[in-house]
């Protein structure tokens, strides 16, 4: 039996909300970063689910791999983003001896 599309979407939405909650509520900057990763991956699930759904519905050729390609690009970008984010956090830590996000409010005038 085939898992219906809505199940995937519910899982992805849940994952997104968990990620959003994590990004908004964690004090630790690494936790925020992890929340962001969760949100990105929930988007990946969506992308793949819709890709599969459309492929089945239209019976298109297997060469149309656009959904997977999108997901892979997102993973790549997320990896790069994680690297940059962690580097930033380390830099902030070296300067301020903290990674608590509410203490890093230098963007305020």
């Amino acid at each position: 039996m085939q898992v219906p599309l809505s199940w995937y979407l519910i899982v992805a939405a849940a994952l997104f909300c968990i990620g959003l909650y994590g990004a908004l509520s964690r004090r630790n900057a690494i936790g925020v970063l992890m929340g962001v990763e969760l949100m990105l991956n929930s988007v990946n699930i969506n992308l793949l689910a819709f890709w599969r759904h459309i492929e089945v519905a239209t019976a298109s050729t297997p060469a149309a791999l656009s959904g997977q390609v999108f997901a892979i690009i997102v993973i790549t970008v997320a990896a790069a983003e994680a690297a940059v984010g962690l580097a930033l956090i380390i830099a902030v830590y070296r300067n301020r001896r903290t990674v608590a996000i509410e203490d890093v409010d230098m963007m305020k005038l």
Partner: protein
Amino acid sequence: MSEFFFNLVWLLPLFPLAAFAIIVLWTNRNRLLSTWIAWIGIGLAWILGWIILFLSWANFEELTPPVHGHPVPLYSIPTGSLQLTLGFQVDTLTALMLLMVPFVCLMIFIYSKGYMNYGTENVDPRYSRFFAYISLFACGMLGLVVSDNFVTLLVFWEIMGLCSYLLIGFWFDKSYPDPKRITPKEAGLKAFLTTRIGDVIMLAGILLLYSQTGTLTFTQVFSEETLHHLATTYAFPGMPWATLIALLIFGGAVGKSSQFPLHVWLPDAMEGPTPVSALIHAATMVSAGVYLVARSFPIFVAVPGGLQLSVVAFIGAFTALFASTIAVAQNDIKRVLAYSTISQLGYMIAALGVGAYVAAVFHLITHAFFKALLFMGSGSVIHGVEHGHHHVHHGHSDTDHSDGDFDPNDMMNMGGLLKRMPRTGWTFIIGALALTGIFPWAGFWSKDEILAEAWHGFQHGGEFGVTMGWAFFVWLFLTLAAFLTAFYTGRQIFLTFAGQPRTEAAKHAPESVPSMTWPLIILALFATFLGLFGTPWANQFFTLIGEKAEVVGEHLPHGEFNLLIAGVSTAVALAGWFLGWLIYGRKPLTEPVDPLEKPLGPVYTLLKNKYYFDEIYQKFIINPTISLGRVCATFDRRVVDGIVNAVGTFGRWLSSWLRKAIDNPIVDGAVNGVGWITAQAGEFMRATQTGNVQNYILVAAVTVVLLLFLFLIRA
């Protein structure tokens, strides 16, 4: 070939102008170089001027004024629908002036080097400037005679006026112990302002001429149609335009040629350096007035027997006699010559007034030569006496001379100078013979021609409707003036050169340097022989400007020799000389008292004080003018300034009210209000900028959710 040189006529004023510019801008510090530049400038003008003279002599038939001439137009001024063409021209009248102007200028330029004490310790501190000024003056005079229209003529006329002012006041720092004696600075101002009266009148005439004819070019103005138009249209009843314009133009000549009643400036102009007196106030500039009348002669005779000719004749004849009476009682050697100049200019003007156009120009030319000679001779005398005075003063410091009181111009301080200064003396005597009209010197021929024409006018009725009465009046006055001329000239010669020196200074006066005496000798030659070109039998002057001239459609008459008149004028001149010898020569003066003083009594005082003209003008014209000026100034300060100040005060009050009522509450309020609103908005928005990343994300997330809801609701 003549075409080529005639087309170069515009170079004539340009040469001295270039010399002026070069001296003023670059060589002012180098005296010798400045001298040479001025000499070269005028020398080139002289050579070109004489080339043009001889070429136009050869072609005089095509070049006789007033309507013929070789035009050299330079440019046009567009004036609406009319074109005002400015340029130069060559005709025989111009050519005749070119005989005299550049040559006399050159002689005087050469003479100036010695007079300004080049190469001695007394050299004038403003030596180079002097040469620059006289070069500019030469530019003015040359430009005047080659102009082909009234506009450039007026411009050059005014350049000369300016130079005259600058040169009379050349020693502007000089002052005299006698406070009543006029200083060079005041004399310059007086000359400038007095001639200015004439210039303004003349300008009015020129403007009227333009308004009536629409042209100011000589050949067009003097054409028969134009003159006919001027003579037959009336400015107001009984006054044709030609008469009015002629009278106004004559006003300019009265000022420039120092005729009564504007004669007062010329004697005081003698405060300038003597070369200037010779150049400007004897030979060239003052004759510009006569030249102007001669040039505009067709306008003067456009209305036959009109008022204008009577006025010209009267002013001329009266001035000739009047000035010669004053000259009798002057002791300043230069002032005698100044009054003599006024008198001789009167001769020329009177000649024009009786229609003797050729004779007037002839006398103008000869007079320029011998009067320049006399002036330069007097300058040489003054120079010598001054040097003698210095010599005595420095050589024997125990003598009783004091520098302040000694006047080297005073003939009473001279005497016996012929032995000390033979070259100056003999050339001066030649000039005097020419001036007094003794046969065969130049003055005899030219003066005799004027008298003969006047007499001819009396006997047969004059040309151009001159009445017999006027002609006789002119002849009588001029003959009387000839007698007085001979008398005061004889007096001058005997006082200056004859007898024994009356002061130590005269006893030690040295002869002047060669650069001063050579010009005298050359001019003396001209004073002797120039008249031979104008004898009644072979009158080259008549050939040049008279024979082919068609003034208002008529040919000029040929002046005839009249033995009676020649005899009378010679007899009168000899009588004058004899009387001069009788009083001053027979028994040379030993005391500086004029023997005329006692017998003439109050008349002598009257003459000595020049008929009190200066005092009368001071009292009746200058003082009222100054008083009027004061009244105007008071009016200006009280009323005009009051109004201006009131306007200012009102303006200030109004603006302060406006500030309080409008600017502060409304304009400033609006501006401040905008600022306040912006500040408040900023204050409010600022609260959202926490700097905390999580807040921003929250805002973004909430916004997305809200938009999502909106989207769903709309769908």
